[in-house]
């Protein structure tokens, strides 16, 4: 028995210059906010961007960007619709707003299927919004996608930092490239994040402050781009992409 889908995945991504998973181990640290708004900033700047939401239990990128009423086209595969210049792929096209009680093995199979049938075309960068944890999703993108890079998000919180360090440790052991660590929701200037990751020799990309009005901008791209969150993120992102 062979799974024919495994062999085609890297072919589907051959015209994608960079593939970056936004991850961090912990939930609720801003992975989806950072993934989707990074895609938005890069698209605004003229880059060809794809965004793939791989959090099947709690897909969020479409909520943050206010994406509704679009659907992929079926051709010799499926072609993600373009929204704000972003080619956007998510389980929501198939799951709607329903609960998705998928076990790990199903998550794995669904990820493989999405990667095998989605025609991204040529992209400067494909951003993946990862679920929390170091389970099926992260293990699958690592094993299936050559040239996978990780952007690691964390907060100052002790709980988040501990989980983040475990993920970084695993990625380093496996030799997977880490773009860097981004601290989110900074409340205090004095942060221990930089010190905590020092010995991993992973770049610190910067910090985004806790933005009390960010939540109110969710779902409205114009408002988002005006937020402190987006302005700080944009700077960090442009630093990486120029």
């Amino acid at each position: 028995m062979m799974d024919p889908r495994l062999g085609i995945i890297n072919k589907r991504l051959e015209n994608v210059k960079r593939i970056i998973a936004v991850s961090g181990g912990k939930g609720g640290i801003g992975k989806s906010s950072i993934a989707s708004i990074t895609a938005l900033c890069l698209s605004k700047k003229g880059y060809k961007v794809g965004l793939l939401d791989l959090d099947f239990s709690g897909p969020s990128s479409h909520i943050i960007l206010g994406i509704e009423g679009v659907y992929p086209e079926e051709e010799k595969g499926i072609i993600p619709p373009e929204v704000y210049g972003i080619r956007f792929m998510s389980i929501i096209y198939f799951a709607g707003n329903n609960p998705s009680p998928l076990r790990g093995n199903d998550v794995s199979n669904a990820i493989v299927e999405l990667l095998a049938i989605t025609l991204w075309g040529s992209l400067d960068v494909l951003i993946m919004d990862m679920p929390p944890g170091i389970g099926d999703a992260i293990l699958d993108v690592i094993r299936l996608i050559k040239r996978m890079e990780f952007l690691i998000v964390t907060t100052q919180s002790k709980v988040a930092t501990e989980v983040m360090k475990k993920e970084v440790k695993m990625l380093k052991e496996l030799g997977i490239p880490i773009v860097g660590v981004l601290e989110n929701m900074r409340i205090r200037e004095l942060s221990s994040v930089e010190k905590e990751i020092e010995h991993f020799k992973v770049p610190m990309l910067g910090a985004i402050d806790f933005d009390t009005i960010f939540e109110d901008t969710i779902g409205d791209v114009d408002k988002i781009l005006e937020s402190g969150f987006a302005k700080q993120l944009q700077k960090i992102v442009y630093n990486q992409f120029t």
Partner: protein
Amino acid sequence: MHEWALAESVIVTAVDEIKNNKLKNISRIQVKVGELQQIDLGIFRFALENVLKSYALGMDIENIIVETDKSVLKCKVCGTEWSFSETLNRLQDDETEAIHFIPEVAHIYMRCPSCKSPDFDIIKGRGVWIDSIEGET
């Protein structure tokens, strides 16, 4: 028509087999198509034929055997086994369409016929699999 993408994956796997095992050619491929994914066999065969040409595999389409595979779903709560076709009539068109793209969303739209749980294993008959590839060295 996304059957094309799956057909292509079968042919690309065959091409990889030739490379990896230093084969002269591929003489026979047995493909299983699971009932759950509701592949259109006409389109699938058509796609296989065309992709075969474009990859210049020098293999006859007649030597690609495509068989459908009945599905077996098994409830993890009560152990009941059933098949997709038995419960198909309870599904809306857009639900079967979604399962056609990502068979795992069956867990969203289908329930165990005995205990109504969404927690079942897809034991058999999920999507496209290669049962065997034979080639000459």
